[in-house]
């Protein structure tokens, strides 16, 4: 129990529209333990990005929270005041949004951007201390300390991405929520960034919630993987279990659709399209595309249950 | 018409509708074109002659017969105003069109073609931008003396083309790098085709906005020259009206019905053209276009 850093309980985040609300995150429950990398995998528009920003209440209208709790060390983040939440953001939980490279001010030096962030949370510091702190941070993301004197526009994509992650680390958070942190990076740089997350976990006990559409990168670095589809979690297992014995048919289909060097030829893509989240189908949301569908799947929504130690699945097969 | 052609026709109609339905463009056009039409009609209906001295009694205050009264030389001011509007707008638009066409042609060639042509055109453009146009205009007008209307329009064009040319060249340079240009080249199009078919249409709102500026610039310059007495003075224009008002010290004498209307009309036309250019800016964004 005390090993759980973050616990999400039945979280619902919807988007207001002129008609029905889009149920982007529809009753999601999971936890992130201390010193673990939890991968969150799913196709595009399955709600994973909404979920990632929703954890730190960083959603903007038309998105709104429609129910559930996000417990950090037992306290509900949605029940806190804005001031309390600000204390938690960055200091305890850091967020790295998608294409965060664009979050850097191109005409400001890197050290300036770091110090802005640090001083905003820890008050003014001595210049010497700041410089030392920034150098350490840069080194931890495998960047040479001279980068601090560069302007953001002179850095490559991979460097910018690492700077943003470094900024997230500036206040030693316990948890980093990273939304597609490597999606626009070269494959070697991608490996470097992902290995950096692993190093942070090993050396500083940091937990990482890694959101990605690429299940292959999660296979390389994650400890546990949660599969999300159409706003709901379909399965959570440890990484070996997911790949060796996937429980949910969607997980299997997802794995089959990933190209790898082991098999030549074009992998099988999943037929059909994800459902319209304004009007999701009754019963299981994956039913129209599921090759193991049964009659009950159309009528009744499967319960999300723990069917074994650490194995969660929402499927009528169980 | 088969189904595809019918779809195309409807889309194009809708395209025009977007332009016309845009409130800003509509407003602006109503202001400028509306006034122009009004002025033409009024100039035909008016029994008075704008330049003939002693046409009507002098210094009449505004009345039903003479909505803006008459000036110290016995001419109906309202008639002057409408004729002046027509002439000013015609000079301004002519100069504007000439300047704009030159700017577009040279700007596109320089921007798309690059190379030596670009260097030469850019150099010439920079020279013209740097030359203090007002000073030269004054000198030329003063030296030549009474200049023809045509000459003045051309002079205005000569000094109006340079800056838009520079801007349009930048825009062409930007568009040249767009992906669809690559595809056009792969489809066998040559340089001229690409400029006309691919670059130009994507610059239309931009061109429209700058056309408005060029026209405003020309009208402004014309009014300015006339105001200080260096224009042709052969036809009545808004600037000339202001010049007469100034010479007869209309401002101090409180002849507000004489000096204010031409100034107001100038402002009205400029604002109208500006609003049109803002409207064109709006529809320039392709994502807003559902043609």
């Amino acid at each position, binding site marked *: 129990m005390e090993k759980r850093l973050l616990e999400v309980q039945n979280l619902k985040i919807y988007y207001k529209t002129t008609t029905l609300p889009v149920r982007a995150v529809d009753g999601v429950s999971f936890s992130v333990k201390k010193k673990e990398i939890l991968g969150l995998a799913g196709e595009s528009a399955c709600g994973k990005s909404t979920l990632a920003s929703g954890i730190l209440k960083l959603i903007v209208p038309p998105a709104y929270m429609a129910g559930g709790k996000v417990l950090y060390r037992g306290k509900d983040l949605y029940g806190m005041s804005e001031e309390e939440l600000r204390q938690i953001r960055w200091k305890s939980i850091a967020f790295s949004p998608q294409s965060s490279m664009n979050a850097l001010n191109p005409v400001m030096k890197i050290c300036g951007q770091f110090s802005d962030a640090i001083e905003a949370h820890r008050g003014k510091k001595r210049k010497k201390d700041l410089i030392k702190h920034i150098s350490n941070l840069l080194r931890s993301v495998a960047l040479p300390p001279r980068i601090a004197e560069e302007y953001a526009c002179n850095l490559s994509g991979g460097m910018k991405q690492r700077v943003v992650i470094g900024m997230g680390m500036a206040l030693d958070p316990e948890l980093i929520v990273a939304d597609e942190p490597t999606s626009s990076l070269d*494959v*070697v740089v991608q*490996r470097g960034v992902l290995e950096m997350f692993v190093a942070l976990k090993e050396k500083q006990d940091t937990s990482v919630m890694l959101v990605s559409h690429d299940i292959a990168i999660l*296979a390389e670095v994650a400890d546990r993987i949660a599969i999300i589809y159409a706003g709901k979690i379909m399965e959570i297992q440890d990484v070996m279990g997911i790949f060796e014995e996937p429980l949910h048919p969607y997980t299997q289909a997802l794995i089959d659709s990933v190209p790898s060097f082991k098999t030549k030829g074009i992998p099988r893509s999943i037929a059909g399209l994800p459902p319209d989240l304004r009007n999701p189908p009754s019963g299981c949301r994956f039913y129209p595309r599921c090759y193991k569908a049964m009659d009950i799947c159309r009528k009744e929504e499967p319960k999300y249950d723990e069917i074994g130690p650490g194995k969660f699945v929402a499927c009528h097969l169980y | 018409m088969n189904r595809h052609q019918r779809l195309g026709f409807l889309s194009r109609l809708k395209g025009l509708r977007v332009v016309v339905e845009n409130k800003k463009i509509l407003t602006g056009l109503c202001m400028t074109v509306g006034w122009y039409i009004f002025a033409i009609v009024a100039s035909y209906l008016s029994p008075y002659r704008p330049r003939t001295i002693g046409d009507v009694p002098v210094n009449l205050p505004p009345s039903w017969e003479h909505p803006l009264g008459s000036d110290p030389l016995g001419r109906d001011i309202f008639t002057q105003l409408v004729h002046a509007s027509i002439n000013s707008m015609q000079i301004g638009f002519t100069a504007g069109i000439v300047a704009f066409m030159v700017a577009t042609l040279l700007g596109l060639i320089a921007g798309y073609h690059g190379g030596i042509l670009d260097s030469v055109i850019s150099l010439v453009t920079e020279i013209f931008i740097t030359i203090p146009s007002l000073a030269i205009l004054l000198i030329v007008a003063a030296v030549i003396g009474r200049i023809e209307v045509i000459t003045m329009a051309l002079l205005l064009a000569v000094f109006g083309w340079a800056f838009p040319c520079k801007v349009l060249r930048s825009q062409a340079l930007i568009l040249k790098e767009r992906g669809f240009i690559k595809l056009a080249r792969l489809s*066998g199009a040559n340089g001229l085709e690409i400029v006309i078919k691919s670059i130009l249409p994507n610059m239309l709102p931009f061109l429209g906005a700058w056309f408005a500026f060029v026209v405003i610039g020309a009208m402004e310059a014309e009014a300015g020259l006339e105001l200080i007495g260096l224009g042709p003075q052969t036809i009545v224009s808004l600037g000339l009206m202001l010049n007469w008002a100034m010479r007869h010290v209309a401002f101090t004498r409180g002849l507000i019905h004489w000096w204010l209307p031409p100034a107001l009309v100038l402002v009205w036309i400029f604002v109208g053209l500006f609003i049109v250019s803002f409207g064109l800016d709006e529809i320039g964004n392709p994502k807003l276009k559902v043609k």
Partner: protein
Amino acid sequence: MENIIEAKNVTKKFSLGGIIKKKYVTAVEDFYFGMKEGTQKVVTLAGESGSGKTTIANLLLGFIRPTYGEIRYRGKDIWKLKGSEWRKYRREVQAVFQDPYESLNPFYKIDNVLLEPIRKFKLAKSKNEAVKLASEALYDVGLDASEILGKYPHQLSGGQRQRAMLARVFALRPEILLADEPVSMIDVSLRADILRIIQKLEKEFELSCLYITHDLSNAYCISDEIIILYLGSVMEQGNFETIINNPKHPYVKMLISAVPQPDPKNRWKGRVELQDIEIARLETIVGCKFCNRCPEAMPICSQKRPPWIDLEDRKIACHLYA
């Protein structure tokens, strides 16, 4: 069998400005490449950003001129082609680009992108025939002509746009297709479809495809050969499967091991060393461009450019195999 398209000794330098002393960066160095008529294969040109692959695409398509060397079409320098020969080159060498939205002129309907080249290359005798050809091509890529024609680019989805670009290729029947990152901006679930269409083009039309990408996993699905670029030079080239299973060049080993595989039993071992090289410093390297990151570097690697060696199952540029 002559080479349809060929790069001989091609080097491309870009100037970085500088008034007194002009600075250059060499984007591509001494590049050799050739594709013969009538072959049916997909060759992957792989490289990370900065490797020069986009420059090579632009050179082969005649958008930029090589600083040294020649790009040849059927034996003739493309920059010396005129008239009908030039048109033939234009038609026979086609491309599909990364961003399907960027590649489309927002002012025109999507029909334009299909009908315009048909008209220019005289592939149909009348407007009706052209529309028919376009519709068939759309069908070939799995699109319904009545749903696509008449629409503007922003009214279509990304997947539809990219398919329409491939339909264009179907209609033109080129000999060579340059596919520059054709799926990197497409939704992951739709990539397989695009790859299938490219494979269909290859098998049905005997077309050769140069698949330019940094994503080796997707390329491996349909490609037979691979050329790996690093900072403008080819490091290794040969049969894709052979090289994947047994890479010899140290950079290629690093690259392939960095591609994430959905196999948690064989995770990454050790750590990769990242290096952010300044472009200006690149020009001063006289030896192998990879030597300061290479775990197997020898003294000669920093002194001389590696020789191009013909091993029995591949070609490689590395002092280790000299």
